């Protein structure tokens, strides 16, 4: 191999354009821009929602209109104009389809490009995919198999119609409408999302998966996901995202609520690869997400995320360890490149006795990006024998990027054991040299080392996802760090 220095790699990395930047021209129905009570009512009406839901949205809207956009995150960006956004966009797909063959071929082609051919998935991957394009679910597979187990997995808009008692009982219990600016906005205008309910003692036989795409230019996407695992059940939920190239910034403010009742376990994995903007930092998705899970007695919630996309990421998947002996986990890889900014981390709130939490966060920054870890570990005074271990490692490529850690540790109980460690380093010259000596070229060597660096987190992903995540890491950092 010719002289391929780290500088070349870095350059290639900086000029690397987003590979999944395509735009499918599907006829969409879009509301006029702007947000007021009438728009909220209209969204609710469009969805044919019951009155309690409309009232819930309006309440959220009223709270939101009194709130101010938060500024504490370590990111800088031009604030979105909330009145310049169209709050509803749905592909015109009427009437409802019974089989895949009836789906718009254009739409299917889009899925092809994303590598999630439904046919193939049906046959091989054993994954039930609830596909969301611009906020409305258009295809749901494996519904029957799940139905036999009593598992409910459907778009939340349908769940509101078909299982209002469940939605009403759990919606907004973990992330209240007034929780924060973006959660309130989402509560007011969310167009769709997924709802999942696992009955008592049922182990969900397959990975539940949803692909989100932002498709229509100028529309914000506001998903709402609610996963309820009843006593003693288990579910593994996957969420993966890619979005087409856009010049204007797109806002994404999702809310994910997980509820793990006694002895239940939820594993929630995310691969996020939204358009990060081009190499000058123009365009890209604003990703302001509120994700939170509640653990009852002996329950466990595990968050795994691979964040490679978005211009701005502002995301803190959290666990409220309410029940005794409950367990919270957070595994994260955040890769930033070019002008991307990520402020991400987790909150572990220990309320119950013998609660445990583990935080493993890996940050890789390249180009001119800023990568921050912001986390809170709070041990309340009644949380006897709580245990936390946190580890935040950062890898820097070049001296134009930054890595930051803002861990907050608040302990009010003497029996708590809390450990936090963080390191920052670059790829060692010796490591590279060692690989080169053994005939591995620099690019591959860097890929190898980054893979090793991220392994602890990648290992936590379900098999199918781990492959995709590895691919994403390579795409985002190709030529530079693998």
């Amino acid at each position, binding site marked *: 191999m010719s002289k391929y220095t780290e500088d070349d790699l870095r350059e290639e990395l900086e000029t690397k354009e987003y590979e999944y930047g395509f735009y499918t021209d599907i006829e969409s129905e879009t509301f006029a821009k702007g947000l007021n009570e009438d728009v909220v009512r209209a969204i609710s009406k469009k969805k044919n929602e019951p009155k309690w839901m409309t009232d819930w949205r309006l309440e959220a809207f009223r709270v939101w209109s009194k709130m101010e956009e938060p500024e*504490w995150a370590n990111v800088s960006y031009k604030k979105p104009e909330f009145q310049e956004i169209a709050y509803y966009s749905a592909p015109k797909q009427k009437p409802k389809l019974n089989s895949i063959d009836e789906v718009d071929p254009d739409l299917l082609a889009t899925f092809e490009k994303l590598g999630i051919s439904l046919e193939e998935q049906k046959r091989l991957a054993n994954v039930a995919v609830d596909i969301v394009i611009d906020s409305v679910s258009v295809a749901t597979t494996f519904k029957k198999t799940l139905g036999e187990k009593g598992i409910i997995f459907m778009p939340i808009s349908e769940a509101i119609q078909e299982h209002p008692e469940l939605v009403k009982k759990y919606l907004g219990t973990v992330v209240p409408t007034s929780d924060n600016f973006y959660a309130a906005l989402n509560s007011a205008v969310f167009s769709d999302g997924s709802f999942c309910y696992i009955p008592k003692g049922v182990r969900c036989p397959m990975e539940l998966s949803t692909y989100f795409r932002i498709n229509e230019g100028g529309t914000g996407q506001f998903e709402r996901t609610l996963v309820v695992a009843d006593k003693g059940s288990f579910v593994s939920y996957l969420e993966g995202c890619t979005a087409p190239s856009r010049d204007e910034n797109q806002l994404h403010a999702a809310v994910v609520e997980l509820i793990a009742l006694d002895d239940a376990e939820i594993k929630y994995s995310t691969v996020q690869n939204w358009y990060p903007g081009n190499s000058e930092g123009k365009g890209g998705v604003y990703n302001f997400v509120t994700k939170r899970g509640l653990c009852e007695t002996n329950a466990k919630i595990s968050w795994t995320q691979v964040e490679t996309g978005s211009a701005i990421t502002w995301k803190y998947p959290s666990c409220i360890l309410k029940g005794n002996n409950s367990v919270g986990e957070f595994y994260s890889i955040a890769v930033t490149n070019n002008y991307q900014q990520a402020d991400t981390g987790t909150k572990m709130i220990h309320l119950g006795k013998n609660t445990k939490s583990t935080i493993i966060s890996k940050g890789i920054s390249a180009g001119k990006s800023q990568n921050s870890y912001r986390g809170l570990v709070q*041990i309340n*005074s009644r949380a006897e024998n709580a245990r936390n271990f946190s580890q935040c490692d*950062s890898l*820097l*490529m*070049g*001296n*134009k*990027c*930054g*890595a*930051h*850690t*803002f*861990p*907050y*540790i*608040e*302990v*009010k*109980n*003497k*029996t*708590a*054991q*809390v*450990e*936090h*460690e*963080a*390191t*920052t*380093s*670059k790829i060692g010259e010796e490591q590279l040299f060692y690989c080169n000596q053994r005939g591995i070229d620099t690019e591959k060597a860097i890929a190898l080392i980054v893979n090793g660096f991220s392994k602890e987190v990648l290992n936590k992903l379900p098999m199918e996802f781990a492959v995709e995540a590895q691919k994403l890491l390579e795409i985002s950092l190709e030529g530079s760090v693998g």
Partner: protein
Amino acid sequence: MDLKEKIVSSYVAFEDGVNINSDIHEIRTDAFQQFEKLGFPSKKLEAWKYTSLNTILKEDYSIFPDKEKSINLADVKQYFIHDIDTYKVIFIDGKYSSFLSETTHDSIDVCLMSSALTKAKYKPVIENYFNKIAKQDNLTSLNTAFSKEGAYIHIPKNTEVEKPIQIINFTTGTEAATMLQPRNLIVVEQNAHVQIIERHQSLTENAVFTNVVTEIYADRHSTVDFYKIQNDHISASLVDNTFIEQQSESIVSVHTFSFGGNITRNNLNFYQKGEHIDSILKGITIIEGKQHVDHHTLVHHIEPNCESHQDYKGIFDERSTGVFNGKVIVEKEAQKTNAYQKNNNILVSDKSTINAKPQLEIFADDVKCSHGCTIGQLDEEALFYMQQRGIGIKEARALLMYAFANTVLESVKIPEVKSRITKLIANKLNVNIGFNI
């Protein structure tokens, strides 16, 4: 009238006592306006998230205590490191005490800020160094606005100061509540070496609020060892703002021992302005009751090839609260930086709280930076082992706590300071272990 209003309205009275046509006074006036604008810090500020000054700001402080009170050496001897010869700069209620002090102008200057600020011969040093690295934040500005008295230490090139320097501020409690704002300036030139011990001590139970600012300049190859002993009455609160600028190959260490006081806040800031610098920040905190100690450190790595080492240990009993907020910034030019930060805490009681925020902001890629923060308890098995061998539970606990704090004590270079701190720890833990570490 709240404290801010009182301070603002007393500024005119303060101006009567100083030369208002000097350059220094311009600095003071600017700082005064800054404070007027900012006021006292509240919990809404990120830097003060875990520390509220509200309870101590309620007192009706006497801002310029003017009743002179002399004190006998015998009464206060215990607060000195008296078993070795030292230079001493002693203040009683903010006023210089020539009787208790031992200053010098013989090759080095160990004297008073009041004369440094007014006499012509100090003018070049003051112009170069006074208020150059102190931040413009609320409390530092407040101190700058009223800066008049404190210790002034100037060590010229190639000088090894043969004995340590003690700076002690006594408060006699002649007023029901006293507010003090000492201002220290320490300039250490090339290849010089100095050791300094600082202490704030009130002699009665009357309330005291001390807002001290110390600026330290360490030139090339210089070495500065600074020891802060904080073992004041429970009625006394302290905000210590220390700013240190280091040039190439200098070594500065600051040890902070916090055992006493009501609310103690240490703002310790290091700015590395050269290469191959070593900055050492260490501390032991052992508190109980409703005491509150907040260590707020900043190490700013600006140039390549430097190091910083932070090691803070805390033991918190009863309803006490501890805060550790350590920030390390590595600029993009500061390649090959090694920055280490360690913060270990033991909570002894159910009611005690620790809030830690170890923070790294790194812009350079070829660096080694790490921080570690732990919160835990004493090892039950170790305690059991010692009890089996006839060591009482109290002594066993104390032994383990000693061992826990020992990494900080080890690097204390003055043996008398080390033994003093050991005694203070024994007192604090209420045991007599019968040996010195």
